[in-house]
């Protein structure tokens, strides 16, 4: 057994887990954050993507004990109170989800993708960047649309903030 201490969605949490416990299982079973999903055994599907210290990580590729000391954001911690994150809002507006199972991973990947491309995104880049996330319902059409729309909204928001600051 190992001690695991994390900051998850802004709260400090700690617990004890078997050494072999993956981060995803720690989040789901120890912390009850079941929004992060497990869709495969081989780190292919991306349903378990969370942010670890600001980067998108498949939480099935990491042991909980490895993550100890990190700051984690899961799908449950993305919205600002009652206000949806722009990526969440765009997935809803553009019908970027159907069964919802891959959705948390898609959204966490998309927010990371948008952050890494402050210059903006095009369809080819979004499709290439989604390589690690599998969806069986949407054919990706509306997921791509939602991410492009969110990227634009966020760029406008950032410009607005920059103007305000100036």
């Amino acid at each position: 057994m190992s001690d695991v201490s994390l900051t998850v969605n802004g709260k400090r949490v700690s617990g004890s887990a078997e050494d072999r416990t993956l981060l995803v299982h720690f989040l789901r079973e120890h912390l009850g954050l079941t929004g992060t999903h497990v869709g495969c055994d081989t780190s292919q599907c991306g349903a378990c993507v969370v942010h670890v210290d600001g980067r998108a990580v498949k939480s099935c590729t990491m042991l909980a004990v490895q993550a100890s000391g990190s700051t984690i954001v899961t799908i449950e911690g993305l919205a600002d109170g009652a206000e949806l994150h722009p990526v969440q809002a765009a997935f809803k507006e553009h019908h970027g989800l159907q069964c919802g199972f891959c959705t948390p991973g898609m959204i966490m990947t998309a927010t990371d993708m948008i952050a890494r491309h402050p210059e903006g995104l095009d369809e080819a880049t979004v499709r290439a960047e989604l390589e690690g996330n599998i969806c069986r319902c949407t054919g990706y059409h509306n997921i791509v649309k939602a991410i492009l729309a969110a990227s634009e909204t966020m760029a406008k928001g950032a410009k607005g903030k920059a103007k305000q600051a100036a």
Partner: protein
Amino acid sequence: MGIEGVGARVARKEDKRFITGGGRYVDDMVVPGMKHAVFVRSPHAHAQIKKIDVKKAQAMPGVVGVLTGKELKADGIGNLICGWMIHSKDGTPMKMGAWSPLAVDKVRYVGDAVVIVVADTKGQARDAAEAVEITYKELKAVVDATKAIQPGAPQIHAESDNNLIFDWEIGDGKATDAAIKSAAHVTRMKIVNNRLVPNAMEPRAALGHYDKAEDHYTCWTTSQNPHVARLVMSAFYNVAPENKLRVIAPDVGGGFGSKIYIYPEEIVCLWASKKTGVPVKWVADRTESFLADAHGRDHVSNVEMAFDKDNRITGLKVDTIANLGAYMSLFSSCVPTYLYATLLSGQYNIPAIHANVRTVYTNTAPVDAYRGAGRPEATYLLERTMETAARELGISPAELRRKNFITSFPHQTPVIMNYDAGDYNASLDAAMKAADYAGFAKRKADAAKQGKLRGIGMSCYIEACGIAPSAAVGSLGAGVGLWESAEVRVNAVGTIEVLTGSHSHGQGHETTFAQLVNQRFGVPIDSVSIVHGDTDKVQMGMGTYGSRSGAVGMSAIVKALDKVEAKAKKIAAHLLEADEGDIVIENGEVKVAGTDKSLPWFQVALAAYTAHNLPAGMEPGLKETAFYDPANFTFPAGCYISEVEIDPETGVTDIIQFVAADDFGNIINPMIVEGQVHGGIAQGVGQALLEGAHYDASGQLLTASYMDYTMPRAGDLPSFKVSTSNTPCPSNPLGIKGCGEAGAIGSPPAVINAITDALGVVDIPMPASPATVWATIRAKKH
């Protein structure tokens, strides 16, 4: 159309929970005292079980129970059944081999469940599962259906000689043979439809909880039809009587057919919960899903299509061998028969059709319905043959299709179906226009200058949805009726609950069904809740598959709404002292037409429950129930066009554009319909280019993870151009045809027709992977 009514692009109500991590899937459920199960599965495709020793496993840390098939049988748990009886052409019933939820003396495919291990944690259950010692005597295996029916092949079930399950036919053999004999031209092809694994992103799961004090079972399961699960587990598997078994299918992460069936795992978890005295949860690993979910397709067919001198089809003869795997899954028998051969007329006027279908046991996972179920196989066979025929006859693929289109309705085909409405030229025109078909020659020439091979292919599909008139399917062998139920409860404050037997696992029912209510009463969709997926809440219903939730499920809701509306009008007429016939309900108000007299909707509801002033003799309350049995199948149809560009150096195929022009009848929410088409196309393109389940000769599944089975990813697909040109369906009150499967049905032949066009070859096997395309190009050169 209001902003939330029928036809509006309403954003989905259910999305809020899914985008914030609040979805509740079976694996998210926690019951006090719950333990975790792991199944020990057969590593052999075909073997006798000589000995099972569980002693070591039982002594492992955290282990609560290690249970075998022998104990399960001793407790009277029944064998799994196939619920659709098919008779061979000689009149004998299909040969159903015994399928025990835990194998007792023999295993028949890699993944066959043998032992369940229950422990405090999943890790402990996994460790203990490895300590279970099973002695097998390996037997020869056969995985290819065409080989399994050869004399001398290993016999998989004692009940079936030569592994033949049934040898069935439909249509007029003599007339078809005569048409072929007198034809001006006959196109002949061998058509192989590759085996697929459905791969809903949520793996199957079951949580069984036996409550000793109440002598009552609860099963949370990943089901598309919880009531059917309860019925089958009660009536056939002897788990518990229906009144003592509650089945809950909460949020379910995709189904595509694979979650229709009642599998061994949910039966065993329920039984094991009673046996061990603790709630038992099992969640499949992805590899378990590959091994033990029902697969789809796997047909080998020979087809002959006869034409007269004017290029009109005069006859179609089909001989199909369908691989059903090691056991007959719940609806496996109807897929290659009544869901397949009855669609072989396609969109065409074909005077004579004959199809012979042999279904076969092999040492592979059971095969059952997967998105489209039989209809993709029929469409692929027909549309590949039409394309080849057009090339052989030297006329354009569009012209050959137009010449043979059915243009007047109703149309009786020679294979049972009676098409009620359609306009196939309209879909073809729309698709060709959207694809700029006329500009293709130039695009092909431009691509050639860059050393690339361009091809274009079309597919004109038809399918049958709205499954199905109960008497009709009963006469064809179905063990169940295929109606749907609905209950509309208007609360005293005017908010509304709709309880439906349909089940949403991605289809957006919580929104579209609420739109129906909004259309009728003007109540905001936020005040309408859709309740589904729980046998304790909802009366008996048949569930969601075969694109039936619109045509059948919503029709049941319409019937219940009719009754509620009639009663509400009676109450309002009484309260407003008006004639019942003058009452109209609009925008949440109940009015007397042509006057300024009105009541808010909620006051009518309140009056129904206070019951202080109701018409004489009227019962209090405002709640109505309806069962809807469809009058006919519905017949969605459309035209899909795919344009591909192939790099001859690498064999990589790029889909340059994919156009879908569908006829779905009336549409409730176009945004959701488009989403269904997008997803279906991705699965169809997956079948054509990427996906294929492969067993080696010994029966090991070589494609048992996402490392080996190529799922379509975002980079494999373009954005799709989808449109509809709709003819309302005359067979149901909403005029709906259904849209859930069309994409998967229409797209594979469009892609393969485009690839064979680009390469100048007659055929290429699916999936047309880069290696296959590259090899085909090389083979053609030499």
